[in-house]
């Protein structure tokens, strides 16, 4: 049956078109706005000038008294701000911190306090604590490993983001514990390989144990093989790109890995049969950024 076109129906249709028009028009207007962004605060010079005047002097940490906390906080800030070009200097400074229990305690408190509020700060402090290789630092990292692993939270892409956040921090704590190479700390690392609920931590624990005990590789692999979960043995052979490693060395490791683990080769890519290839547009030119 054909519907009858009445005046009322035409009016309804016109009203619908008007509403749709308003919203589509508003959308187009918003998208076509081309106003430049601006700033309410003064803007700075080019970064090369900012970096040229940057303070590169590593703050000294007090060994006692009321200055300890303030100097530790200054040191943490400095370490986070410093570039990779000061990594070695900071490592040397941390050697001097090994016996400074008061400073390590402040760092430990700061790591726990940043855990939920500022992930990158917590990561930074756990790295410093691990590198300090101190007995007090080890106790702190062991305590950090005991933080309860969340069972619920915000699910994104099928993962609970609170688990991922704590997993990456505990993986960093594991790096510090493995770096100590002590009997008790090694036991924590091996236990993490076996029973930590997160693959992020288990994978890091395998890597850290093998790397820190690389002077006795056969024993290290035996120890890890004894605790690794079934199905995760491939982590013992994982390809690592070491800092400063040559392309030739990396590529040889990769070839050996793929020979041993042909199952790690990705599946053949699939062309999309259902959708039309979008029409090719004239390539846009990448504009040149301002001079650094």
């Amino acid at each position: 049956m054909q519907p009858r076109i009445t005046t009322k129906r035409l009016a309804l249709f016109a009203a619908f078109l008007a509403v749709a028009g308003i919203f589509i028009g508003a959308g187009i207007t918003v998208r076509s706005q081309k106003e430049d962004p601006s700033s309410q605060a003064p803007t700075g010079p080019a970064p090369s000038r900012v970096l040229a005047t940057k303070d590169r002097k590593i703050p000294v940490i007090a060994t006692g008294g009321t200055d300890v906390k303030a100097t530790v906080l200054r040191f943490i800030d400095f370490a986070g701000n410093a570039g990779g070009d000061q990594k070695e200097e900071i490592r040397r400074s941390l050697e001097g911190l090994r016996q400074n229990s008061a400073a390590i305690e402040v760092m430990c408190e700061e790591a726990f306090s940043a855990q939920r509020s500022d992930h990158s700060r917590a990561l930074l402090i756990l790295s410093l604590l691990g590198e300090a290789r101190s007995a007090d630092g080890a106790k702190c990292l062991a305590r950090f490993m005991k933080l309860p692993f969340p069972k619920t939270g915000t699910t994104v892409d099928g993962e609970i983001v609170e688990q991922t956040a704590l997993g990456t921090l505990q993986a960093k704590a594991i790096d510090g514990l493995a770096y100590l190479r002590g009997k008790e700390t090694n036991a924590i690392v091996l236990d993490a390989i076996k029973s930590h609920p997160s693959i992020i931590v288990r994978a890091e624990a395998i890597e850290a144990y093998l790397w820190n005990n690389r002077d006795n590789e056969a024993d290290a692999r035996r120890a890890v093989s004894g605790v690794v979960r079934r199905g995760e043995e491939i982590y013992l052979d994982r390809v690592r790109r070491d800092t400063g490693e040559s392309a030739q060395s990396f590529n040889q490791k990769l070839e050996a890995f793929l020979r041993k683990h042909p199952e790690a080769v990705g599946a053949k890519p699939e062309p999309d049969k259902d959708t039309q290839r979008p029409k090719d547009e004239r390539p846009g030119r990448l504009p040149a950024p301002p001079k650094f």
Partner: protein
Amino acid sequence: MKRIHLILASAFLLLAVQSVSVYAVCNQSSASTADTNLWNTHGCWQAFFLWSYKAYDQRSGDWNSRGWNDACNVNLEFPKHWNAAYLVTYGLLDNNSQSFHGTADYRATGEAAGSNFHSSLYHLASDDSCCFGSFTPTVFGPNELRTMCLLYSTSSANANPASRAGDFMHEGWHGWLRKGNWNNGSCGGHRCGPTGSCTASGCDYFYFHGIGAYAFGALWQTDGTANRFHSPNQVQVEFLCDVADQSKGWVPNSVRLAGKADADQRAVARFINGPGYKCGDPRPW
């Protein structure tokens, strides 16, 4: 007439509800340590954000309440976005014998301009808490690349410039898949998971390649086989790893550490065919 009023009222109500409900709003009261540390290397560089908003095709209507007119306030999303763009543009070493890929590759993947890497893109921010980011193909105009609160709100582990820029790579690579007409799966452009070694709901394959297999600027190339191909998570991991240990000497340690942590966790959780590369040695600092 009554019916017209009813329809109009319903239409307005529907649109109003769609636009205001369900979404959280990004936290605009602070910036992460990594964001602040990277920010300190430029102290707010006007010439850059006046360039980057064009390079990333950002528009005032989308970023108005997110720092478009307060572009030196690092607590807001627009400044955080350009802080990440700054890392991509200047932060990498482009070391032929050690980097996975070069600045030319990462810029072309994240920036808006149409190229061999993808058709043109358009960067927006969203308060949606569903994801870190999204890529939405459009019929008319540039495809949409959205970055969301989990990349901006300080308490989130991914609210740092390395992870944010990593998401530009991930979503930009969906643009590459689309341009090349590749089917990477039906779960948001990924294989549905968990499956194999992948614990997430959207999974990829890792297509291993050696250092130097791709000349800088040639990341877009493929021979249509697993020998020469990239997935979105893989491009993201390789970028994050290059930030972690192939970045310029001035790139702050907090940014490198955040990049490494994200690369490492993604490498073990997002790939069907086992873990991707391990990024650097496990020395704590």
